[in-house]
């Protein structure tokens, strides 16, 4: 069978563009680029209420993302939410008296954990736990408090 060279070239171009498009939506559109580093160390924090926090939500210090949440579990004994987060290995000088709070990005944005650094000389290491935590702000609770205090006045 006769095969013109240009046909091969066009088919090759098609396949390359198609795979390139897949690569593009993988790297540029999705979070594949941030998947790559699975190393790093894990720390945990206990919250009274972890609100709308989700697995893979960001963990940030001073507004910079330094890790992601890897698991959210419920503790059967203390009735608390146990949040595990993975911190990237280059951020290994977080003081061990840092505190963790759950904030919301914008009015309707996703919730994330923000770490406030402490003053200790000791650093957080693998499997260490953050003691000082501040729960997520639940809008209904605030409204309830507001109405309650209004009644008292």
């Amino acid at each position, binding site marked *: 069978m006769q*095969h013109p060279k240009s046909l091969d070239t066009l*088919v090759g171009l*098609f396949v390359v563009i*198609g795979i390139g*498009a897949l690569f593009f939506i993988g790297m540029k*559109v*999705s*979070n594949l680029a941030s998947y790559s580093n699975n190393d790093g160390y894990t720390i945990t924090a206990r919250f009274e209420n972890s609100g709308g926090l989700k697995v893979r939500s960001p963990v940030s210090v001073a507004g910079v993302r330094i890790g992601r949440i890897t698991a959210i579990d419920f503790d059967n004994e203390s009735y608390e939410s146990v949040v595990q987060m993975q911190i990237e290995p280059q951020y290994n000088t977080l003081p061990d008296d840092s505190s963790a709070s759950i904030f919301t990005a914008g009015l309707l944005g996703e919730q994330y954990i923000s770490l406030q650094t402490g003053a200790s000389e000791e650093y957080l290491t693998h499997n260490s736990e953050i003691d000082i935590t501040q729960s997520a702000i639940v809008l209904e609770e605030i409204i309830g408090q507001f109405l309650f205090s209004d009644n008292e006045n």
Partner: protein
Amino acid sequence: MTYSHLGQNLNMITFLSVIGQSVIANLTKTGRGTLFLKQTLSCTFSVLCHPRLIIKQLFSVGVLTVLIITISGLFVGMVLGLQGYYILSDFGAEETLGVMIAASLVRELGPVVSALLFAGRAGSSLTAEIGLMKATEQLAGMEMMAVDPIQRIICPRFLAGCLSMPLLAAIFSMVGVLGGQLVGVTLLGVDEGAFWSQMQSNIDFYDDILNGVIKSLVFGFVITWISLFEGYDAIPTAEGVSRATTRTVVYSSFAILGMDFILTALMFGDI
């Protein structure tokens, strides 16, 4: 009195037999289709050893469809950008435009619209080609020469269709996202950093993109199966081929939309 009673019975029996005929005809067609698919799949290995056959079909099935896919993707993305911007700006959430465009393209519009276009552009031409080969007795001629038409004609086209569909859907999504960026960022002034970063933090590679690719693989499989079988099973006359071509487009579109609902429910829903 007894006579008219008998006539009613006869009418009833004719009515039942019409239903029965159509059910049996549809069932035999499904059976033929399944056997056809089995025969086609059993040739896969020997065809993979002759990649030249597939390359030639990749050209007519894939490369010639790229243009329509690219242009449609561009316009779908641009329309999504416009409409999304108008709605989201009511809530002051223009920054999430990128997420909206990318999520709807990657999850739904990319696989589905490109599959519908593929069925119209490539599926119908496959049916017409195979149907005409049958009408002009080329398939019978091949069999006379001890060349298996399924292996020589059908299977390469089948593999080419299955291969090119995910690539076309990926091209569609990519061009769509770029078109959305063109309208959203360049024309309407959404912040470029927010557009891309919100997209990246909200679109998951495994949940969204791989599921989209799986969808388009399934669609490619179903479309090429339907169109090849309709051509192979067509009544070998001009009218028969034209009807088969129409059926290809109609059945493929139904199959795409129905399968899309089922796949979406399985992948993203909690059903």
